[in-house]
């Protein structure tokens, strides 16, 4: 096994299995792994031919041996995996065996319907069956970094074998799901893989730029397994046609760049591997030294802290935010998402996510929030909780490399948080406080930071993975200590070489014109070396201060971004001036989304919220509905009006929250809606949702691909009387039927309304629904009638 990581020798992997199996009669579409059982001697001969060609490692014939790919094949995972290892073991002699793990072949949530846990379980099954006789685990040809994370965790939690990971990149330098090399390296190397690299898709020549990027960042050995050139279609068949000599030449070039594990993928045969072996004979691997980065990653974007100023958006945190509290209590993920989107659009680089409220299940909501946000916004997340269980659950399902907020100098906190940081390869914010509180003096805060670093290193965490927060105190209560924070940040930077963060807006608490103090403090802190301020990105003053700082500090070269940001400000004022006052009904009919809320706020000064709903919103909606039905307007225009009403509604709700506290006060009845299990089409459902909300119903939207149990649970919890289900495909109407059955069983009084492209009234009746809504307007009519609003 030691041979795997010998620094002075290349490790040669074998080439394609599929191409050779096809030569021996494997049909297109036939399961290659079935040959392990049907024709073990063929598989064995292929292994032997690669060993004869010079391979040090043979890869088991288990690329597609997951329970999903084997479904309907008549073979079990254990059977296929064990047989392949038996064959490999007998053929290998003193050579090494890599247990091959390919992609499951289905896209994961939220785009597909495969959950992280399901992917993990499938990989774990393959690993448990195969680890006994393998020398390493090769997770390969991956396009989706989220799937790789599931596979790596499955490998590490179910075996002690070394883990090697390869992903496959397109010519644009990203994987099919959008991951670039720096993001891949940042996530995987910190998850603790033993080697990583690139395979398949590209020929060796096209792979060179991707390899160069990987080598720039990777501190673990790098593997390359190119195809035998780019695929070409000859006589209607795909072939690869680079010669073994040319393959060998390119492989030697890549070895020279720093790749130390070399092999072939699609289209390569023992001749290619022989040429590769010959081409690198006499060469020695070189391992380029790389600089360690302090970088957080989402699946598709990496924010390097220390390169320019990185803004951490603080808005997703219920402390002091009435609307967010209300949204969290009502499970209203759309509100969180809008906050996430707004912060991204305002220029945040990283988003802090904190959902801690005493009255909710923080773990459940945190996991849900992270899943939702990572599906919509591609910024790295900072997972913020005081509860280690919540942090671990979120770090596990996070699709990327998160920052954990936070650890501090208390031993018991460190001993709980650091194992999570290490296991999931996170960054961590270190607060300079301990059992005794926050020290007054900068020097004492530095000491705590030093202690945290030392302890982290004992857990195997690099110092680069720690971002220090020297803690901002309020100028109103502890004026003297404000500058100690700034001094401490500068000390941490200078003495420990660590990156720093600060929650800036604390400083102004209890004083007037907080923005002015915040902005001034921010500028002072930036000048002293603050790398990642935690601020409200929607506070224009703060963002402007950073933009100006970037010019003066020579970060924003030629002041390009600054100049661009100044010119766009002028444009938006110009547009504003053109706006004229209009009547609310007309605003709704014309779908002038932005004008609704200001107009409603004006009306609220002398109208009750409910009066505005009944006297303005609903009458206007009825007019719009009639226009739609008569064909005077079409769907996008209907939706534009609906969004306008929604904005009006939100302004009313906000008003009620501010004046009366809890509850929306205008609900006309509850409706739970969902796109059923297995189905991912939700535009129709979203249209129904907005129209129902427009008419004053409280809608609980469970999203798409929703488990039956989750629907039942929600109906019970909210004591809703009506459920709306959507399914677009004939294949998913079946799961709609099952959902209705379960609802009847557990909630006998429930009424069910269904809709979707393949349904009609008869079909709806057949599957046991009470109502069929042929379109969203019909769904509104049914609901209004049901709740006696007409």
């Amino acid at each position, binding site marked *: 096994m030691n041979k795997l990581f010998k620094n002075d020798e290349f490790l040669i992997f074998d080439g394609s299995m599929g191409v050779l199996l096809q030569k021996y009669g494997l*049909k*297109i*579409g*036939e399961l290659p792994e079935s040959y392990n059982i049907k024709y073990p001697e063929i598989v064995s001969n292929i292994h032997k031919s690669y060993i004869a060609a010079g391979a040090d490692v043979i890869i088991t014939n288990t690329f597609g041996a997951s329970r999903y790919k084997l479904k309907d094949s008549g073979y079990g995972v254990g059977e296929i995996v064990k047989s392949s290892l038996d064959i490999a073991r007998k053929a290998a002699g003193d050579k090494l065996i890599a247990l091959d793990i390919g*992609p499951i*072949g*289905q*896209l994961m949530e939220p*785009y*597909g*319907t*495969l959950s992280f846990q399901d992917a993990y379980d499938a990989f774990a099954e393959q690993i448990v069956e195969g680890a006994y006789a393998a020398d390493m685990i090769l997770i390969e*040809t991956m*396009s989706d970094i989220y799937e790789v994370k599931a596979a790596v965790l499955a490998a590490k939690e179910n075996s002690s074998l070394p883990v090697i990971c390869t992903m*496959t990149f*397109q010519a644009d330098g990203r994987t*099919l*799901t*959008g991951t670039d090399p720096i993001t891949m390296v940042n996530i995987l190397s910190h998850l603790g893989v033993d080697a990583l690299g690139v395979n*398949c*898709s590209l020929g060796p020549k096209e792979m060179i730029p991707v390899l160069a990027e990987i080598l720039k960042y990777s501190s673990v050995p790098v593997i390359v397994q190119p195809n035998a050139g780019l*695929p070409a*279609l000859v*006589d*209607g*068949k*795909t072939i690869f046609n680079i010669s073994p000599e040319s393959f060998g030449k390119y492989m030697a070039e890549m070895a020279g760049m720093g790749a130390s594990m070399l092999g072939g993928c699609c289209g390569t045969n023992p001749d290619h591997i022989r040429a590769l072996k010959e081409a690198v004979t006499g060469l020695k691997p070189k391992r380029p030294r790389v600089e360690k980065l302090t970088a957080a990653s989402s699946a598709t974007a990496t924010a390097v802290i220390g390169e320019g100023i990185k803004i951490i958006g603080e808005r997703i945190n219920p402390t002091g935010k009435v609307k967010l509290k209300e949204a969290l209590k009502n499970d209203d993920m*759309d509100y969180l*998402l*809008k906050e996430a*989107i707004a912060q991204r659009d305002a220029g945040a680089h990283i988003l802090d996510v904190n959902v801690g409220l005493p009255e909710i299940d923080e773990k459940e909501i945190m996991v849900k929030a992270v899943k939702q946000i990572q*599906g*919509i916004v591609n910024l790295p997340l900072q997972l913020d909780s005081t509860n280690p269980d919540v942090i671990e659950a979120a770090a596990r399902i996070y699709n990327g490399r998160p920052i954990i907020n936070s650890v501090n100098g208390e031993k018991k906190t460190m001993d709980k948080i650091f194992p999570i940081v290490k296991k999931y390869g996170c960054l961590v914010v270190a607060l300079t406080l301990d059992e005794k509180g926050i020290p007054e003096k900068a020097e004492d805060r530095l000491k705590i930071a030093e202690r945290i670093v030392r302890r982290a290193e004992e857990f195997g965490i690099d110092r680069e993975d720690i971002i220090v927060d020297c803690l901002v105190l309020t100028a109103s209560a502890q004026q003297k200590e404000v500058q100690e924070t700034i001094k401490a940040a500068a000390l941490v930077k200078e003495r420990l070489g660590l990156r720093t963060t600060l929650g800036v807006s604390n400083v102004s608490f209890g004083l007037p014109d907080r923005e002015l103090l915040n902005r001034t403090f921010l500028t002072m802190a930036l000048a002293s070396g603050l790398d990642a301020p935690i601020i409200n990105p929607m506070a224009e003053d703060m963002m402007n201060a950073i933009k100006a700082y970037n010019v003066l500090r020579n970060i924003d070269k030629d002041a390009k971004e600054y100049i661009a940001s100044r010119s766009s400000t002028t444009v938006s004022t110009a547009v504003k001036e053109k706006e004229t006052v209009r009547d609310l009904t007309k605003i709704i009919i*014309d*779908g002038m989304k932005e004008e609704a809320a200001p107009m409603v706020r004006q009306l609220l000064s002398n109208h009750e919220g409910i009066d505005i709903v009944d006297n303005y919103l609903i009458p206007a909606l009825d007019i719009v509905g009639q226009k739609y039905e008569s*064909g*005077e*307007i*079409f*769907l*996008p*225009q209907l*939706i*534009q009006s*609906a*969004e306008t009403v929604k904005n009006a509604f939100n302004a009313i709700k906000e008003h009620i929250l501010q004046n009366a506290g809890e509850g929306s006060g205008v609900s006309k009845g509850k409706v739970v809606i969902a796109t059923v299990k*297995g*189905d*991912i*089409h*939700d*535009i129709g459902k*979203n*249209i129904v949702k*907005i129209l129902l909300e427009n008419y004053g119903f409280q809608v609980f939207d469970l999203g798409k691909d929703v488990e039956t149990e989750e629907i039942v649970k929600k109906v019970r919890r909210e004591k809703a009387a009506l459920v709306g289900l959507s399914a677009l*495909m*004939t*294949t*998913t109407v079946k*799961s709609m039927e099952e959902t209705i059955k379960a609802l009847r069983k557990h909630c006998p009084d429930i009424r069910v309304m269904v809709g979707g492209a393949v349904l009609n009234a008869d079909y709806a009746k057949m599957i046991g629904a009470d109502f069929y809504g042929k379109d969203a307007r019909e769904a509104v009519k049914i609901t209004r009638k049901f709740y006696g609003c007409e």
Partner: protein
Amino acid sequence: MNIDKKEVLRYLGYRGQKIDDSLAGLLDECVSEVRTVSNLGFTYEIYDIEGNEEGLCLKGTTLILRGRDIHSNLAKAEKCAVMAVTLGLEVDRRIDFYTRADLTKGLIFDACATAAVESCCDIVQEEIKARAKIMGLETTSRFSPGYGDFYIGIQKEIVRALKTYEKIGLSVNESSIMIPRKSVTAIIGMQNEGCDTVECKCGSCEDKYCSYRRDRDYE
């Protein structure tokens, strides 16, 4: 990639209504954004057809095409191309994003993406037609799983045979839904003589009340 605005409007249920400047602007914006963010992927293979009692078998593969409609579409075909096209995952991401952030835009964006994937299919179909011509063959119209009685479950088998997940990132879930969503699989027959199979166009469908039906033109 050509996105026909008339097609987009048809998917949106357009029936000649007046469109104001802001909506027209949004439509243009979506058309151009779909073009920019699409990561077009396609793949196809050409197989000989061997009919037997089970259905139409594609030589050298495990694919068997079953059903009356695909049979009549390929009645005279000796070969067929099996194709798969996808706009990629970023289009799905944007649809999810806009349907949350701006539903009107989400709706229009979705329709533009549908028009885009259809137009990409046309391009691939032209390429297949050109290949057929070299072989001295004519092509039939494009026929997709889910048309008529052509079993939608075959999508899984097509995806496996063409290795679409590995090549272009196209997968099929357990409910036979293709992901990324803006994707198409189809069969195109290749035959000796001119194609006299009925063009399987929208207007010939049995669902006369479908709101997407292409029966009138609106400028």
